[in-house]
């Protein structure tokens, strides 16, 4: 086990072996509908009766197009949205009624690095760690350690985030999530926009985290090869509905195909490449 564990992870013990239990989860937004009038809105279902379970220590990838509901799912599990129906439990804790407990268990890496742009990596991590009860004495040693682990050049840790490359920013985002030792890590397009080398480094680090920490990972991505390389099971979210969630080989067997692209076509009737060309696949 690494020395990076934050104090909170021992104060809120996991209650069950199932890390995530989602049952009939539903979320609807209201969107402007100009065609129906200036102020008219229409309901738009982002998640429609989604049900799945993730075991403790498992890595599950959810594939889906832009607008398929992947980010909504991540936001619901990280207490940033309130559900319209169904339920979600994280280590037995209700995600919508035990928000504070959930927040100590979960952290997230999103497609946008989301930092104070004028502040350095050191300062952003230091500030974020305080929310997770880490004192300056603890972060003084832990921040360089975690930055070195994600392959971030330590001589750049005093530079403002706005002067760092996209790849470096994403490494700091990973470091921020792992600094607080979450037991559930939500990765929402973590390698989107990275150059191939940075992408491989981030993927290798995710594998290392799985090896060294007792962490469960929900990876939302549009990159099928990344999902195949990292996840134990792969799910497909299409227009808010989870079409399947199985090991890769079972998915291929179920549709009688050789690749995930073909499975996507078989499940949705649309070509993955076509959707990607039209900018439908999440970026």
């Amino acid at each position, binding site marked *: 086990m690494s020395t990076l564990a934050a104090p909170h992870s021992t104060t809120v013990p996991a209650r069950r072996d199932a890390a995530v239990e989602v049952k009939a989860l539903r979320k609807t937004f209201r969107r402007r509908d100009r065609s129906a009038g200036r102020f008219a809105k229409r309901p738009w279902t982002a998640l429609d009766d989604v049900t799945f379970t993730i075991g403790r220590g498992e890595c599950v990838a959810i594939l889906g197009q832009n607008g398929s509901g992947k980010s909504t799912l991540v936001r619901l599990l990280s207490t940033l949205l309130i559900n319209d129906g169904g339920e979600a439990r994280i280590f037995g804790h209700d995600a919508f009624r035990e928000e504070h407990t959930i927040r100590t268990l979960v952290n997230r890496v999103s497609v946008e690095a*989301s930092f104070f742009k004028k502040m350095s990596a050191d300062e952003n991590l230091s500030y974020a760690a305080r929310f997770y009860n880490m004192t300056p004495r603890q972060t003084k040693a832990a921040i360089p350690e975690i930055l070195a682990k994600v392959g971030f050049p330590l001589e750049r840790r005093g530079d403002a985030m706005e002067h760092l490359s996209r790849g470096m920013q994403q490494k700091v985002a990973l470091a921020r999530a792992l600094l607080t030792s979450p037991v559930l890590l939500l990765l929402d397009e973590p390698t989107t926009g990275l150059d191939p080398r940075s992408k491989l480094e981030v993927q290798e680090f995710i594998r290392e985290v799985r090896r060294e920490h007792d962490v469960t990972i929900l990876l939302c991505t549009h990159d099928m090869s990344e999902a195949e390389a990292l996840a134990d099971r792969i799910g497909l979210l299409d227009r808010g509905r989870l079409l399947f969630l199985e090991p890769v080989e079972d998915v291929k067997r179920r549709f009688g195909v050789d690749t995930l692209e073909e499975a996507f076509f078989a499940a949705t009737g649309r070509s993955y490449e076509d959707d990607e060309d039209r900018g439908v696949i999440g970026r």
Partner: protein
Amino acid sequence: MSSYVLTFRNNLVGLAGIVERNVYLTKRYLLWDLAFMVWTIANTLTIVFIARVANLPPAQENRLATELLVGAVIWAFLGIIFEFVTETVAWERWEGTIEYTFMAPISRTMHLFGMAAYAVLYGMIRATILFFAVIAFIGIHVPDANFGAALALLAIASLSFMGIGIMTSVLPLISPEKGAQLGFIAQGLMLVVSGVYYPVSVMPEWMQWISKVSPATYVLRGDRHAIVSGAGMAWGDVWPMLVIAVVATPLGLAIFHRGERYAKRHGKLKRSG
């Protein structure tokens, strides 16, 4: 350590984190802060010089200049508290960090108090520089000033302003586009009715009634007496501010809580800009 003490200790560490972050940001935007400081001093001078055109005897001119200066300095101080707290959500939304802050295990009370604590610290430093810079430039004399009473009144007023600021900070949460603008309107209304540069008695009666619910009215009156005449704290100025603080802070937190639930239900906790 009992769980309550541990929770409180953890929240204090989080509160310190908010203050720490704002210190980092102030360091990073130091040149902007210097520019704003120069602008504020220049703006205050334009107000205080008005005392010179009244052609009053020197003692009365000094008194008028001091009263205008106290108004400008207190408004600058309270404006900083109000803006820091009101724009808590708007800043984070602009920087793109709002989701990370709202999914962190810190209570919203400590989050908002952390913003207010830094605002008081930062506002106090700026107000002190402003006060003495203008005094030195114009040559105002305040031999009888009771700075202790003035500062104590300012501290009590800060509590009231925190509460009102928390109430208005919910606006950018429920309306990302228009919320910050509404916050400015609220601040502007308070500026008009509180007698920052003139006694509230010169306003129409209906405005005088509104001035009674603005904490700025009482701190301006009390601090003018303290700086010009060396008066101590008057209970008549203290109790209205305490009442406003006691009512506005929990009310502000309750409103913010409702606003946060609304934002989470309608998906408004997103970055913009």
